[in-house]
Protein backbone atom coordinates (compact mmCIF):
# COMPACT_ATOMS: atom_id res chain seq x y z
CA UNK A 1 0.00 0.00 0.00
CA UNK A 2 1.33 3.39 -0.92
CA UNK A 3 -0.47 5.36 1.76
CA UNK A 4 0.90 6.60 5.08
CA UNK A 5 4.43 6.96 3.70
CA UNK A 6 5.06 9.89 6.00
CA UNK A 7 3.90 8.10 9.17
CA UNK A 8 7.37 7.17 10.45
CA UNK A 9 8.69 10.71 10.02
CA UNK A 10 5.70 12.15 11.84
CA UNK A 11 6.09 9.75 14.75
CA UNK A 12 9.79 10.48 14.99
CA UNK A 13 9.17 14.23 14.99
CA UNK A 14 6.51 13.82 17.66
CA UNK A 15 8.91 12.26 20.16
CA UNK A 16 12.09 14.20 19.42
CA UNK A 17 13.35 17.56 20.63
CA UNK A 18 12.51 20.70 18.62
CA UNK A 19 15.14 21.61 16.01
CA UNK A 20 14.58 25.32 16.50
CA UNK A 21 16.26 27.41 19.16
CA UNK A 22 14.46 29.22 21.93
CA UNK A 23 15.49 32.60 20.50
CA UNK A 24 15.83 35.28 21.97
CA UNK A 25 16.06 33.54 25.36
CA UNK A 26 19.01 31.63 23.94
CA UNK A 27 21.29 33.89 21.92
CA UNK A 28 22.06 33.11 18.27
CA UNK A 29 25.56 31.83 17.58
CA UNK A 30 27.32 33.30 14.57
CA UNK A 31 30.26 31.58 12.92
CA UNK A 32 33.62 33.30 12.84
CA UNK A 33 33.35 34.40 9.20
CA UNK A 34 29.86 35.88 9.56
CA UNK A 35 29.71 39.26 7.85
CA UNK A 36 27.93 41.40 10.43
CA UNK A 37 29.35 44.91 10.37
CA UNK A 38 32.49 46.79 9.35
CA UNK A 39 34.87 47.80 12.07
CA UNK A 40 37.76 50.22 11.78
CA UNK A 41 41.04 50.48 13.60
CA UNK A 42 41.16 54.25 13.41
CA UNK A 43 44.79 54.48 14.62
CA UNK A 44 46.04 52.71 11.49
CA UNK A 45 43.67 54.55 9.15
CA UNK A 46 45.32 57.13 6.92
CA UNK A 47 42.04 58.60 5.63
CA UNK A 48 42.96 57.83 2.05
CA UNK A 49 39.28 57.48 1.10
CA UNK A 50 39.77 54.41 -1.10
CA UNK A 51 37.10 52.52 0.89
CA UNK A 52 34.57 55.30 0.32
CA UNK A 53 35.29 55.55 -3.40
CA UNK A 54 34.87 51.82 -3.92
CA UNK A 55 31.88 51.20 -1.67
CA UNK A 56 29.08 49.90 -3.94
CA UNK A 57 26.42 51.42 -1.67
CA UNK A 58 28.39 54.70 -1.18
CA UNK A 59 27.86 54.44 2.54
CA UNK A 60 31.39 55.30 3.74
CA UNK A 61 32.35 58.98 3.88
CA UNK A 62 35.88 60.13 4.52
CA UNK A 63 36.50 63.75 5.37
CA UNK A 64 40.20 64.55 5.21
CA UNK A 65 39.80 68.15 6.38
CA UNK A 66 37.88 67.25 9.52
CA UNK A 67 39.94 64.07 9.85
CA UNK A 68 36.93 61.78 10.24
CA UNK A 69 35.83 58.41 8.88
CA UNK A 70 32.08 57.75 8.99
CA UNK A 71 29.74 54.98 7.91
CA UNK A 72 25.98 54.76 7.71
CA UNK A 73 25.49 51.28 9.10
CA UNK A 74 21.91 51.05 7.84
CA UNK A 75 22.97 51.58 4.23
CA UNK A 76 25.92 49.17 4.45
CA UNK A 77 25.31 45.98 2.47
CA UNK A 78 28.09 44.00 4.21
CA UNK A 79 29.79 43.05 0.97
CA UNK A 80 33.27 43.45 2.38
CA UNK A 81 34.68 45.25 -0.65
CA UNK A 82 36.11 48.05 1.51
CA UNK A 83 37.97 45.47 3.61
CA UNK A 84 39.34 44.04 0.39
CA UNK A 85 40.45 47.44 -0.90
CA UNK A 86 41.93 49.01 2.25
CA UNK A 87 45.67 49.53 1.65
CA UNK A 88 46.43 49.61 5.38
CA UNK A 89 44.21 46.62 6.25
CA UNK A 90 42.66 48.61 9.09
CA UNK A 91 39.10 47.64 8.17
CA UNK A 92 37.62 44.30 9.24
CA UNK A 93 34.21 42.76 8.90
CA UNK A 94 33.12 41.03 12.09
CA UNK A 95 30.02 39.13 13.33
CA UNK A 96 27.16 41.02 14.94
CA UNK A 97 24.45 42.70 12.90
CA UNK A 98 23.36 46.30 13.30
CA UNK A 99 20.46 46.52 15.74
CA UNK A 100 17.26 47.86 14.17
CA UNK A 101 16.30 51.41 15.00
CA UNK A 102 13.63 54.03 14.31
CA UNK A 103 16.05 56.29 12.52
CA UNK A 104 19.14 55.90 10.39
CA UNK A 105 22.29 57.31 11.87
CA UNK A 106 25.93 57.59 10.96
CA UNK A 107 28.76 56.26 13.05
CA UNK A 108 31.70 58.67 12.92
CA UNK A 109 35.27 57.95 13.98
CA UNK A 110 37.72 60.77 14.54
CA UNK A 111 41.44 60.62 14.01
CA UNK A 112 43.70 63.15 15.71
CA UNK A 113 45.21 65.47 13.13
CA UNK A 114 48.86 64.73 12.52
CA UNK A 115 51.43 66.07 10.10
CA UNK A 116 51.00 64.57 6.65
CA UNK A 117 53.71 62.17 5.56
CA UNK A 118 54.75 62.03 1.94
CA UNK A 119 57.07 59.67 0.12
CA UNK A 120 60.49 60.80 -0.94
CA UNK A 121 62.70 58.87 -3.30
CA UNK A 122 66.43 58.64 -2.83
CA UNK A 123 67.67 59.62 -6.26
CA UNK A 124 70.96 57.79 -5.77
CA UNK A 125 69.42 54.35 -5.40
CA UNK A 126 66.25 54.80 -7.51
CA UNK A 127 66.33 52.77 -10.74
CA UNK A 128 63.15 54.37 -12.21
CA UNK A 129 61.42 51.00 -12.44
CA UNK A 130 57.94 52.75 -12.22
CA UNK A 131 56.62 50.11 -9.80
CA UNK A 132 55.67 52.82 -7.29
CA UNK A 133 53.74 54.75 -9.94
CA UNK A 134 51.83 51.61 -10.90
CA UNK A 135 50.97 50.78 -7.29
CA UNK A 136 49.83 54.30 -6.37
CA UNK A 137 46.02 54.22 -5.96
CA UNK A 138 45.76 57.96 -6.70
CA UNK A 139 48.22 58.13 -9.59
CA UNK A 140 50.14 60.80 -7.74
CA UNK A 141 53.59 59.60 -8.78
CA UNK A 142 55.02 60.13 -12.25
CA UNK A 143 58.23 58.44 -13.25
CA UNK A 144 60.08 59.13 -16.47
CA UNK A 145 62.76 56.58 -17.12
CA UNK A 146 64.27 58.38 -20.12
CA UNK A 147 64.73 61.67 -18.32
CA UNK A 148 65.46 60.06 -14.93
CA UNK A 149 62.70 61.96 -13.24
CA UNK A 150 60.65 60.99 -10.17
CA UNK A 151 57.87 63.40 -9.30
CA UNK A 152 55.14 63.48 -6.70
CA UNK A 153 51.90 65.41 -6.82
CA UNK A 154 51.54 66.33 -3.14
CA UNK A 155 47.88 67.29 -3.40
CA UNK A 156 46.87 63.89 -4.75
CA UNK A 157 49.03 61.86 -2.35
CA UNK A 158 47.10 60.24 0.50
CA UNK A 159 50.14 58.94 2.43
CA UNK A 160 49.11 55.32 2.06
CA UNK A 161 52.70 54.13 1.88
CA UNK A 162 52.07 51.58 -0.85
CA UNK A 163 54.95 53.04 -2.87
CA UNK A 164 57.27 52.62 0.07
CA UNK A 165 56.39 48.96 0.52
CA UNK A 166 56.47 48.17 -3.20
CA UNK A 167 59.88 49.73 -3.97
CA UNK A 168 62.32 46.92 -4.86
CA UNK A 169 65.36 49.07 -4.04
CA UNK A 170 63.95 50.38 -0.75
CA UNK A 171 64.77 53.89 -1.92
CA UNK A 172 61.42 55.45 -0.96
CA UNK A 173 60.92 56.66 2.59
CA UNK A 174 57.98 58.44 4.17
CA UNK A 175 58.94 61.85 5.52
CA UNK A 176 56.92 64.60 7.19
CA UNK A 177 55.67 67.27 4.86
CA UNK A 178 57.27 70.65 5.31
Amino acid at each position, binding site marked *: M*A*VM*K*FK*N*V*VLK*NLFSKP*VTKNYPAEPAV*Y*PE*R*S*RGHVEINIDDCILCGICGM*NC*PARTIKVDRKASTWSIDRFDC*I*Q*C*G*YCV*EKCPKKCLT*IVPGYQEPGAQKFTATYEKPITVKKIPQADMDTCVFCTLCAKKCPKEAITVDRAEKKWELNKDLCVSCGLCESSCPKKSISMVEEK
Partner: protein
Amino acid sequence: MAKQSIIPFGPQHPVLPEPIHLDLVLEDEKVVEAIPSIGFVHRGLESLVDKKDFNEMTYVIERTCGICSFMHGMGYCESIEKIMQVEVPNRGKYLRTIWAEMSRVHSHLLWLGLLADAFGFESLFYQCWRMREKVLDLFEMTTGGRCIFSVNKVGGVLKDIDDVMLQTIKVTMDDIAADLRIVRKTFMKDYTVESRLRGVGILTKEQAHNLGAAGPFARASGIKMDMRTTGYAAYGDLDFDIITSDECDSYGRCEVRINEIFQAIDLIGQCIDKMPKGDIATIVKGNPNGEAFVRMEQPRGEAVYFSKANGSKFLERMRVRTPTFANIPGLLETLKGADFADVPLLILTIDPCISCTER
Protein backbone atom coordinates in the same frame (compact mmCIF):
# COMPACT_ATOMS: atom_id res chain seq x y z
CA MET B 1 -20.83 26.07 -25.10
CA ALA B 2 -19.71 26.75 -21.59
CA LYS B 3 -19.68 30.24 -20.21
CA GLN B 4 -16.32 32.03 -20.32
CA SER B 5 -15.05 34.11 -17.48
CA ILE B 6 -11.78 35.89 -16.74
CA ILE B 7 -10.19 35.54 -13.33
CA PRO B 8 -7.23 37.68 -12.31
CA PHE B 9 -4.56 35.65 -10.55
CA GLY B 10 -1.90 37.44 -8.49
CA PRO B 11 0.17 39.59 -8.09
CA GLN B 12 -0.62 38.80 -4.46
CA HIS B 13 -1.36 35.14 -3.92
CA PRO B 14 -0.49 32.73 -1.08
CA VAL B 15 1.49 30.46 -3.41
CA LEU B 16 3.56 33.27 -4.90
CA PRO B 17 6.55 34.52 -2.98
CA GLU B 18 7.02 37.16 -5.66
CA PRO B 19 4.55 39.12 -7.75
CA ILE B 20 3.40 37.91 -11.15
CA HIS B 21 -0.03 38.54 -12.58
CA LEU B 22 -1.98 36.20 -14.85
CA ASP B 23 -5.31 36.80 -16.49
CA LEU B 24 -6.92 33.36 -16.66
CA VAL B 25 -9.68 32.79 -19.20
CA LEU B 26 -11.85 30.04 -17.77
CA GLU B 27 -14.48 27.83 -19.31
CA ASP B 28 -16.31 26.48 -16.27
CA GLU B 29 -13.39 25.15 -14.22
CA LYS B 30 -10.91 24.69 -17.08
CA VAL B 31 -8.32 27.25 -18.07
CA VAL B 32 -8.48 28.06 -21.78
CA GLU B 33 -5.88 30.76 -21.94
CA ALA B 34 -3.53 32.64 -19.68
CA ILE B 35 -2.03 36.06 -20.33
CA PRO B 36 0.96 36.98 -18.19
CA SER B 37 1.80 40.41 -16.92
CA ILE B 38 5.06 41.10 -15.15
CA GLY B 39 6.88 44.25 -14.12
CA PHE B 40 5.96 44.70 -10.48
CA VAL B 41 9.53 44.40 -9.25
CA HIS B 42 11.58 45.83 -12.12
CA ARG B 43 14.54 47.59 -10.52
CA GLY B 44 16.74 48.38 -13.50
CA LEU B 45 19.81 46.71 -12.01
CA GLU B 46 21.40 46.35 -15.44
CA SER B 47 21.45 50.11 -15.99
CA LEU B 48 23.64 50.52 -12.89
CA VAL B 49 26.67 49.79 -15.10
CA ASP B 50 26.81 53.54 -15.70
CA LYS B 51 27.42 54.25 -12.04
CA LYS B 52 29.32 51.27 -10.64
CA ASP B 53 32.64 50.11 -12.02
CA PHE B 54 33.07 46.56 -13.23
CA ASN B 55 34.41 45.29 -9.90
CA GLU B 56 31.55 46.79 -7.90
CA MET B 57 29.04 45.34 -10.37
CA THR B 58 29.83 41.87 -8.96
CA TYR B 59 28.07 42.89 -5.76
CA VAL B 60 25.17 44.44 -7.64
CA ILE B 61 24.61 41.45 -9.92
CA GLU B 62 24.62 38.94 -7.07
CA ARG B 63 21.80 40.92 -5.47
CA THR B 64 19.57 40.16 -8.46
CA CYS B 65 18.08 37.27 -6.55
CA GLY B 66 18.29 35.89 -3.04
CA ILE B 67 18.26 32.22 -3.98
CA CYS B 68 20.64 31.87 -6.91
CA SER B 69 22.80 34.83 -5.89
CA PHE B 70 26.10 32.95 -5.99
CA MET B 71 25.63 31.80 -9.58
CA HIS B 72 24.77 35.31 -10.73
CA GLY B 73 28.02 36.66 -9.31
CA MET B 74 29.94 33.74 -10.76
CA GLY B 75 28.39 34.13 -14.22
CA TYR B 76 29.15 37.81 -14.30
CA CYS B 77 32.75 37.29 -13.16
CA GLU B 78 33.28 34.55 -15.76
CA SER B 79 32.04 36.85 -18.51
CA ILE B 80 34.54 39.54 -17.48
CA GLU B 81 37.28 36.92 -17.14
CA LYS B 82 36.48 35.72 -20.64
CA ILE B 83 36.82 39.27 -22.00
CA MET B 84 40.10 39.87 -20.17
CA GLN B 85 41.34 36.32 -20.86
CA VAL B 86 42.08 35.67 -17.23
CA GLU B 87 42.51 32.07 -16.15
CA VAL B 88 41.16 31.37 -12.66
CA PRO B 89 43.44 29.09 -10.61
CA ASN B 90 42.22 25.52 -10.26
CA ARG B 91 41.43 25.77 -6.59
CA GLY B 92 39.31 28.84 -7.26
CA LYS B 93 37.37 26.91 -9.90
CA TYR B 94 36.73 24.00 -7.53
CA LEU B 95 35.61 26.32 -4.74
CA ARG B 96 33.19 28.02 -7.13
CA THR B 97 31.84 24.64 -8.16
CA ILE B 98 31.28 23.58 -4.55
CA TRP B 99 29.36 26.76 -3.75
CA ALA B 100 27.39 26.53 -6.98
CA GLU B 101 26.33 22.96 -6.27
CA MET B 102 25.47 23.82 -2.68
CA SER B 103 23.26 26.59 -4.09
CA ARG B 104 21.54 23.99 -6.23
CA VAL B 105 20.90 21.75 -3.20
CA HIS B 106 19.44 24.63 -1.23
CA SER B 107 17.37 25.99 -4.11
CA HIS B 108 15.85 22.61 -4.96
CA LEU B 109 15.09 21.86 -1.30
CA LEU B 110 13.38 25.23 -1.07
CA TRP B 111 11.36 24.37 -4.16
CA LEU B 112 10.38 20.94 -2.80
CA GLY B 113 9.13 22.62 0.36
CA LEU B 114 7.11 25.15 -1.61
CA LEU B 115 5.68 22.38 -3.77
CA ALA B 116 4.58 20.45 -0.69
CA ASP B 117 3.02 23.65 0.62
CA ALA B 118 1.24 24.25 -2.71
CA PHE B 119 -0.51 20.90 -2.61
CA GLY B 120 -1.29 21.35 1.06
CA PHE B 121 1.19 19.04 2.81
CA GLU B 122 2.43 21.37 5.57
CA SER B 123 4.55 18.93 7.55
CA LEU B 124 6.42 17.81 4.43
CA PHE B 125 7.14 21.47 3.73
CA TYR B 126 8.74 21.89 7.16
CA GLN B 127 10.70 18.69 6.68
CA CYS B 128 12.29 20.01 3.45
CA TRP B 129 13.11 23.41 4.86
CA ARG B 130 14.67 21.81 7.91
CA MET B 131 17.19 20.10 5.62
CA ARG B 132 17.76 23.35 3.74
CA GLU B 133 18.65 25.08 6.99
CA LYS B 134 21.76 22.90 7.25
CA VAL B 135 22.96 24.10 3.85
CA LEU B 136 22.40 27.72 4.87
CA ASP B 137 24.48 27.12 8.01
CA LEU B 138 27.27 25.76 5.83
CA PHE B 139 27.10 28.87 3.67
CA GLU B 140 27.34 31.10 6.71
CA MET B 141 30.31 29.12 7.99
CA THR B 142 32.24 29.24 4.71
CA THR B 143 31.32 32.62 3.24
CA GLY B 144 29.89 34.67 6.10
CA GLY B 145 26.47 35.18 4.54
CA ARG B 146 23.37 33.03 4.39
CA CYS B 147 21.88 34.30 1.13
CA ILE B 148 24.30 36.80 -0.35
CA PHE B 149 27.80 35.36 -0.24
CA SER B 150 29.99 38.11 -1.76
CA VAL B 151 32.89 35.69 -2.30
CA ASN B 152 33.24 36.12 -6.05
CA LYS B 153 35.59 38.57 -7.61
CA VAL B 154 36.93 39.01 -11.10
CA GLY B 155 39.84 36.58 -11.20
CA GLY B 156 38.77 34.07 -8.58
CA VAL B 157 37.22 33.89 -5.15
CA LEU B 158 37.86 35.87 -1.97
CA LYS B 159 37.64 33.18 0.68
CA ASP B 160 39.20 29.76 0.95
CA ILE B 161 37.56 26.70 2.48
CA ASP B 162 40.06 24.86 4.68
CA ASP B 163 40.23 21.08 5.10
CA VAL B 164 38.28 21.01 8.37
CA MET B 165 35.41 22.92 6.76
CA LEU B 166 35.52 20.68 3.68
CA GLN B 167 35.08 17.62 5.89
CA THR B 168 32.18 19.33 7.73
CA ILE B 169 30.55 20.01 4.37
CA LYS B 170 30.97 16.39 3.34
CA VAL B 171 29.50 15.00 6.55
CA THR B 172 26.55 17.42 6.48
CA MET B 173 25.84 16.65 2.83
CA ASP B 174 25.73 12.93 3.64
CA ASP B 175 23.25 13.70 6.43
CA ILE B 176 21.07 15.63 4.00
CA ALA B 177 21.21 12.77 1.49
CA ALA B 178 20.08 10.33 4.20
CA ASP B 179 17.19 12.60 5.24
CA LEU B 180 16.23 13.20 1.64
CA ARG B 181 16.02 9.48 0.92
CA ILE B 182 13.26 9.22 3.55
CA VAL B 183 11.41 12.25 2.19
CA ARG B 184 11.76 11.03 -1.40
CA LYS B 185 9.51 8.08 -0.58
CA THR B 186 6.73 10.48 0.34
CA PHE B 187 7.17 12.63 -2.76
CA MET B 188 7.47 9.76 -5.21
CA LYS B 189 5.28 7.01 -3.78
CA ASP B 190 2.62 8.52 -1.54
CA TYR B 191 -0.86 8.05 -2.94
CA THR B 192 -2.17 11.54 -2.16
CA VAL B 193 0.92 13.31 -3.45
CA GLU B 194 0.90 11.29 -6.65
CA SER B 195 -2.73 12.08 -7.31
CA ARG B 196 -1.94 15.80 -7.18
CA LEU B 197 1.12 15.52 -9.46
CA ARG B 198 0.62 12.75 -12.01
CA GLY B 199 -0.80 13.87 -15.33
CA VAL B 200 -1.04 17.50 -14.21
CA GLY B 201 0.39 20.16 -16.53
CA ILE B 202 1.60 17.98 -19.38
CA LEU B 203 4.27 19.51 -21.61
CA THR B 204 5.48 17.13 -24.32
CA LYS B 205 9.07 17.05 -25.52
CA GLU B 206 8.09 18.75 -28.75
CA GLN B 207 6.15 21.50 -27.00
CA ALA B 208 9.00 22.09 -24.56
CA HIS B 209 11.44 22.51 -27.44
CA ASN B 210 9.11 24.74 -29.42
CA LEU B 211 8.55 26.98 -26.42
CA GLY B 212 12.22 27.32 -25.55
CA ALA B 213 11.94 25.85 -22.08
CA ALA B 214 15.11 25.58 -20.00
CA GLY B 215 16.48 23.73 -17.01
CA PRO B 216 14.67 21.07 -14.97
CA PHE B 217 11.41 22.15 -16.59
CA ALA B 218 12.75 21.09 -20.02
CA ARG B 219 14.62 18.06 -18.68
CA ALA B 220 11.39 16.75 -17.13
CA SER B 221 10.02 16.65 -20.69
CA GLY B 222 12.91 14.48 -21.81
CA ILE B 223 15.12 17.17 -23.38
CA LYS B 224 18.80 16.46 -22.78
CA MET B 225 20.10 19.91 -22.04
CA ASP B 226 22.48 20.97 -19.34
CA MET B 227 24.86 23.92 -19.59
CA ARG B 228 27.27 22.19 -17.21
CA THR B 229 28.30 20.05 -20.16
CA THR B 230 30.04 23.13 -21.60
CA GLY B 231 32.57 22.51 -18.83
CA TYR B 232 32.75 25.91 -17.14
CA ALA B 233 34.40 26.12 -13.68
CA ALA B 234 35.51 22.61 -12.65
CA TYR B 235 32.71 20.66 -14.34
CA GLY B 236 35.12 19.47 -17.02
CA ASP B 237 36.93 17.31 -14.44
CA LEU B 238 33.84 15.88 -12.80
CA ASP B 239 31.78 12.88 -13.68
CA PHE B 240 28.06 13.45 -14.08
CA ASP B 241 25.11 12.65 -16.33
CA ILE B 242 22.22 14.76 -17.48
CA ILE B 243 19.18 13.86 -15.41
CA THR B 244 15.99 13.68 -17.43
CA SER B 245 12.53 12.23 -17.00
CA ASP B 246 10.03 11.11 -19.62
CA GLU B 247 6.98 11.77 -17.47
CA CYS B 248 6.42 15.25 -18.99
CA ASP B 249 4.18 16.25 -16.05
CA SER B 250 4.50 17.80 -12.60
CA TYR B 251 5.53 14.43 -11.19
CA GLY B 252 8.44 14.33 -13.63
CA ARG B 253 9.57 17.84 -12.64
CA CYS B 254 9.56 16.81 -9.00
CA GLU B 255 11.50 13.63 -9.82
CA VAL B 256 14.14 15.50 -11.83
CA ARG B 257 14.74 18.00 -9.06
CA ILE B 258 15.00 15.36 -6.33
CA ASN B 259 17.51 13.40 -8.41
CA GLU B 260 19.45 16.59 -9.10
CA ILE B 261 19.88 17.15 -5.36
CA PHE B 262 21.49 13.71 -5.07
CA GLN B 263 23.63 14.50 -8.11
CA ALA B 264 24.71 17.83 -6.62
CA ILE B 265 25.65 16.14 -3.34
CA ASP B 266 27.70 13.63 -5.33
CA LEU B 267 29.43 16.44 -7.28
CA ILE B 268 30.32 18.24 -4.04
CA GLY B 269 31.87 14.97 -2.80
CA GLN B 270 33.89 14.63 -6.00
CA CYS B 271 35.11 18.23 -5.72
CA ILE B 272 36.22 17.72 -2.11
CA ASP B 273 38.10 14.54 -3.02
CA LYS B 274 39.84 16.14 -5.99
CA MET B 275 40.41 19.56 -4.41
CA PRO B 276 43.73 20.90 -5.76
CA LYS B 277 46.12 23.00 -3.70
CA GLY B 278 47.25 26.47 -4.66
CA ASP B 279 46.00 30.01 -5.12
CA ILE B 280 42.35 30.92 -5.08
CA ALA B 281 42.56 34.01 -7.27
CA THR B 282 44.75 35.65 -9.89
CA ILE B 283 45.54 39.33 -9.85
CA VAL B 284 43.65 41.17 -12.54
CA LYS B 285 45.08 44.36 -13.96
CA GLY B 286 43.61 46.92 -16.28
CA ASN B 287 40.11 47.35 -17.64
CA PRO B 288 38.15 44.96 -19.85
CA ASN B 289 37.69 45.68 -23.54
CA GLY B 290 35.46 43.50 -25.70
CA GLU B 291 32.35 41.43 -25.24
CA ALA B 292 31.45 37.93 -24.15
CA PHE B 293 28.50 35.63 -23.68
CA VAL B 294 28.63 33.11 -20.85
CA ARG B 295 26.07 30.39 -20.30
CA MET B 296 25.54 28.68 -17.00
CA GLU B 297 23.27 26.10 -15.47
CA GLN B 298 21.40 27.75 -12.65
CA PRO B 299 19.19 25.65 -10.36
CA ARG B 300 16.30 26.87 -12.53
CA GLY B 301 17.97 26.36 -15.90
CA GLU B 302 20.14 28.05 -18.46
CA ALA B 303 21.19 31.59 -17.61
CA VAL B 304 22.98 33.83 -20.11
CA TYR B 305 25.35 36.60 -19.06
CA PHE B 306 26.42 39.17 -21.60
CA SER B 307 29.00 41.84 -20.87
CA LYS B 308 30.24 44.48 -23.26
CA ALA B 309 33.15 46.67 -22.24
CA ASN B 310 34.88 49.57 -23.93
CA GLY B 311 38.22 49.70 -22.14
CA SER B 312 37.10 52.07 -19.38
CA LYS B 313 36.25 50.88 -15.90
CA PHE B 314 32.53 51.24 -16.58
CA LEU B 315 30.91 48.59 -18.75
CA GLU B 316 28.93 49.51 -21.83
CA ARG B 317 26.21 46.93 -21.22
CA MET B 318 25.54 44.08 -18.86
CA ARG B 319 22.69 41.70 -19.37
CA VAL B 320 21.40 38.71 -17.46
CA ARG B 321 18.87 36.42 -19.12
CA THR B 322 17.43 34.35 -16.33
CA PRO B 323 15.82 30.91 -16.72
CA THR B 324 12.37 32.00 -15.58
CA PHE B 325 12.25 34.43 -18.50
CA ALA B 326 12.58 31.44 -20.84
CA ASN B 327 10.11 29.30 -18.92
CA ILE B 328 7.13 31.66 -18.82
CA PRO B 329 5.93 30.71 -22.35
CA GLY B 330 6.14 27.04 -21.34
CA LEU B 331 4.13 27.77 -18.22
CA LEU B 332 1.36 29.38 -20.30
CA GLU B 333 1.17 26.23 -22.41
CA THR B 334 0.89 23.90 -19.40
CA LEU B 335 -1.87 26.08 -17.98
CA LYS B 336 -4.07 25.53 -21.03
CA GLY B 337 -6.58 22.81 -20.21
CA ALA B 338 -5.61 22.63 -16.55
CA ASP B 339 -8.08 22.78 -13.69
CA PHE B 340 -8.34 26.13 -11.96
CA ALA B 341 -7.39 24.44 -8.67
CA ASP B 342 -4.10 23.25 -10.21
CA VAL B 343 -2.98 26.71 -11.37
CA PRO B 344 -0.97 27.55 -8.21
CA LEU B 345 0.78 24.19 -8.40
CA LEU B 346 1.62 24.61 -12.08
CA ILE B 347 3.04 28.08 -11.58
CA LEU B 348 5.26 26.57 -8.95
CA THR B 349 6.51 23.73 -11.12
CA ILE B 350 8.60 26.09 -13.27
CA ASP B 351 10.22 27.31 -10.05
CA PRO B 352 9.46 30.95 -10.80
CA CYS B 353 11.88 33.62 -9.69
CA ILE B 354 10.28 36.87 -10.68
CA SER B 355 12.81 39.34 -9.32
CA CYS B 356 15.45 37.51 -11.37
CA THR B 357 13.25 37.79 -14.42
CA GLU B 358 12.68 41.51 -14.16
CA ARG B 359 15.99 42.52 -12.58
